[in-house]
């Protein structure tokens, strides 16, 4: 029989294991092994209670031995070994009163809900061009020609200085929120002092003929989620930014200011082709470039 099996020794070692519980596992295991070795050396296997009690008294209480293993104060190491993180968090959490948790919950809602909502709005998909398009004015329909500029195809119509020109396209809203087109983010009509007018059809009806003119438009109109609408883009053309026969200017993407929820952002609608006005030799000639004041359509 080993001295470690003596009831008094066994009880002491159990107390030691409990006392060492707050030490790092490696340090605790090493110290327990050292104390066991000490007891085995100090006590014969058949030691009586008196001898065991004397050796244990000389060894000191298990709690004192464990305490001596804690890092010393003032040496830059903490006096009490750190508990596992989960236990420390649980202990700290229990110290916070219920009112504290209510305040924390209120703050989380106050900060998290608006932030989450804004993130949700910002991550909504942008509007998309839905391939159907047409020049708005009948005067332009019959004069459209396909031209090439910088490798890109242009659907070009003769510029009609001082006249309202423009086109209509279908736009799809792929997002889960209604998007409201509040205006244009750039000036499509060259030199015009005011931005083009952007209007949205009130319905999504797509007929075989007659559209885009057979639908009603509304400036600042909404496009519901997963729906399409006609979008009309009109401007008053200004000749003097085109320098003679063969020159043209237009756009191949439409920069729109779009409101999603309570935020307004700029969306770039790729049109696939460029809508341009140009100066043709056989086209109408401007009267003059004298007037800078070009009224809004």
């Amino acid at each position, binding site marked *: 029989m080993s001295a470690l099996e003596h009831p008094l020794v066994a009880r002491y070692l159990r107390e030691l294991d409990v006392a060492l519980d707050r030490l790092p596992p490696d340090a605790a295991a090493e*110290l327990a092994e050292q104390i066991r*070795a*000490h007891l*085995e*050396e*100090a006590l014969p296997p058949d030691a009586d209670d008196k001898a065991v009690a004397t050796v244990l008294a*000389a060894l000191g209480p*298990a709690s004192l*031995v464990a305490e*001596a293993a804690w890092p010393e104060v003032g040496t830059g190491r903490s006096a009490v070994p750190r508990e596992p993180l989960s236990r420390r968090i649980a202990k700290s959490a229990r110290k916070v009163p219920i009112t504290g948790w209510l305040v924390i919950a209120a703050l989380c809602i106050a900060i998290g809900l608006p932030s989450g909502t804004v993130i949700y709005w910002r991550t909504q998909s942008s509007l998309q061009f839905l391939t159907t398009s047409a020049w708005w004015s009948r005067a332009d329909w019959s004069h459209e020609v396909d031209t090439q500029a910088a490798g890109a195809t242009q659907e070009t119509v003769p510029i009609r200085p001082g006249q309202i020109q423009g086109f209509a396209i279908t736009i799809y809203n792929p997002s889960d929120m209604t998007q409201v087109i509040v205006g244009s983010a750039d000036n499509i009509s060259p030199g015009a002092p005011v931005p083009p007018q952007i209007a949205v059809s009130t319905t999504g009806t797509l007929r075989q003929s007659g559209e885009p003119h057979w639908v009603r438009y509304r400036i600042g109109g909404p496009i519901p989620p997963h729906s399409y609408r006609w979008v009309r883009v009109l401007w008053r053309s200004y000749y003097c930014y085109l320098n003679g026969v063969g020159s043209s200017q237009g756009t191949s993407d439409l920069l729109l200011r779009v409101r999603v929820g309570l935020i307004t952002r700029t969306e770039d609608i790729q049109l696939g082709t460029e809508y341009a006005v140009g100066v043709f030799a056989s086209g109408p000639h401007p009267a003059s470039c004298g007037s800078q004041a070009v009224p809004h359509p």
Partner: protein
Amino acid sequence: MSGMDRAAETTELRRGVLGPCVLALLAERPRFGLELVRDLSQADGLLTSEGTVYPLLNRLRDAGLVTNRWVHDDKTRPRRYYSITDQGREHLVAFRTDWSAFSAAVDGVLGIGADPGAGQRRRRVGGETG
């Protein structure tokens, strides 16, 4: 001063010198745990709880002042022997120097020595000339 305060003060004193005493014993020769504890116990009042020597040994080892190795002997159970390192010897030499000066100063202030009044007189002389 109460008895409890005095005991705490003695414990602090003991704690401060126990490490160098362990190093001094190991500087003589390597020792295994119980052997070291028993030798320390020979010095009256130096050790009150033998179990606290092992955490101290582990700290000295972590500081690089002591090393240990297992020795397997046919006659006895495997034992962990503790030895002093070169760094430990340097530390011990430095402590001996400091301790000599420190203990002499404390003895002088406390009036301990051949002439119990020497410390008091020295202090008075210092006060008069300063």
